[in-house]
């Protein structure tokens, strides 16, 4: 894990991908150099003390030569609404990189990447890294509509992408869980990496247990410090006496490490 730091990052670009999804690119050379796939940053989203807490966003891309870091996010409430109004040249406070990202090692393995909705944000960074190690990637991507399969074309550079949408406007109509079952039937994988809503993570967790394929899951939880200091972001560990901090022991957990609540 790279060295964590607090930065004031200049906005290079703010792109609206649809009515409420944005791609924010910040000038943050140290972060770009240090970040690992699956890590996140805590971003200050507001001018006064309301909102007070920073917002955790996964690192979508880190371009170390350009010194740029990108975040793919959906406007959900007050904080992301504010963030979406930041324009080129303005500044955003940012703490990162944070957390334990995806673990991978070795060359030329075969992996299944599963992402749904805006939860797919960390997959691009991961796919790029894995492709660099000559991994073969099968990437399952779910979204509401064709239009919200934001990183599809970028991901296609690193592996084979299978898309599915709620309305059938791209791929079949359905959930990414359907693609998961099929993929596991048809192929064999050394690893599964998943991020997205709870039902997707639960399906991957079950599949991992059933088939004995190691899986890593990226979790979300309300956060305050992002550094492991406040104990605010815990989830239940499989060892019932242990509460795990999503920001420190995660956000990426081995599937068997955690109990996923509904």
């Amino acid at each position, binding site marked *: 894990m790279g060295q964590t730091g*607090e930065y004031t990052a200049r906005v290079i670009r703010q792109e609206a991908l649809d009515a409420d999804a944005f791609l924010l690119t910040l000038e943050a050379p140290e972060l770009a150099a240090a970040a690992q796939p699956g890590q996140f940053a805590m971003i200050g989203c507001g001018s006064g*003390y309301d909102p007070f807490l920073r917002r955790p966003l996964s690192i979508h891309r880190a371009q170390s030569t350009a010194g740029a870091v990108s975040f793919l996010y959906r406007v959900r409430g007050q904080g992301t609404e504010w963030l979406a109004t930041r324009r080129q040249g303005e500044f955003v406070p940012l703490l990162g990189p944070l957390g334990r990202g995806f673990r991978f090692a070795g060359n030329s393995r075969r992996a299944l990447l599963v992402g749904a909705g805006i939860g797919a944000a960390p997959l691009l960074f991961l796919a790029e890294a894995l492709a660099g190690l000559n991994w073969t990637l099968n990437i399952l991507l779910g979204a509401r509509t064709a239009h919200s399969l934001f990183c599809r074309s970028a991901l296609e550079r690193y592996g084979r992408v299978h898309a599915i949408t709620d309305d059938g406007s791209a791929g079949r109509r359905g959930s990414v869980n359907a693609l998961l079952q099929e993929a596991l039937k048809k192929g064999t994988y050394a690893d599964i990496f998943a991020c997205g809503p709870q039902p997707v993570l639960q399906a991957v967790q079950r599949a991992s247990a059933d088939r004995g394929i190691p899986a890593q899951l990226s979790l979300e939880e309300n956060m*305050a410090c992002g550094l492991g*200091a*406040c*104990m*605010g972001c*815990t989830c239940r560990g499989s060892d019932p006496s242990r509460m795990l901090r999503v920001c420190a022991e995660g956000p990426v957990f081995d599937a068997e490490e955690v109990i996923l609540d509904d």
Partner: protein
Amino acid sequence: MTDLAVSIAGISMSNPVLVASGTFGYGAEYHPVFDVSRLGALVTKGLTLRPCAGNPGRRLCETPAGLLNAIGLQNPGVEVFIGDILPAMRSYGVPVIANIAGATDEEYVALAERLDGSGVAGLELNISCPNVQAGGMALGTDPCLAASVVAAVVQATSLPVIVKLTPNVTDIVGLARAVVDAGAAALSLINTLLGLAIDVETGRPALGNITGGLSGPAIRPVAVRAVWQVAQAVDVPIIGMGGICTGRDALEFILAGASAVAVGSAFFHDPLAAVKIIEDLERYCDRKGIADWRTLIGAAWKS
């Protein structure tokens, strides 16, 4: 540059900026972000005799200019603390204050005895935690019960005993007097306000524990008022806290009568808050030509 040194209950600090228990982990968590040896003192997350898993369910809920927390004293227990955590914590070269919480007087006494000689510089008695069922809150709202636990702990340890009070009482001055009479060497003011939030989509309380403790800038005026009232009534130093985010905020507490301040929730808004506060205080003293910063303590009512 102004010398900000101060001594609280016999604990010497290079400056009056501490961290608030539970918001800063054990120091190591923030050390990558800034040099924690610049702080006046470190204060641990609340320690219990045995390991404690804390509360289930959602533990944090943001509110206007603040947050509710219901962590519930998750900590590895005093043994693991002393064995595995304290050495690293002491390595920063600043005093370490152990925040302790028990369900009974006996537990507080056992904690105090175990920590005596461990290398901590002092104890902060948390008799004001709104997030635990037993002890905590009840002990902290009744002057007699509060005095009894404080007296027992003072008796049991050679360490200076700082008592942390809750603002959720009718008469914080009476409570402060009672624990000072019982031997408290200093007071920490304030712990969180008891609050609750409801998720209107689910129709249920937002936090797993139902109620939580409110902290952050939202509560600052309540905290400054508590310091103002108590500082005029007792003769021990006060560590002020509650929503301190800037040097300006810290000065409010100092002018109201605090001899030191603790930074808590502010770390969540700006991880560098404490460092900036130290620098702000130095600048303020320089700008105002104040030779001994301690003349500011309580100046709002002394002058």
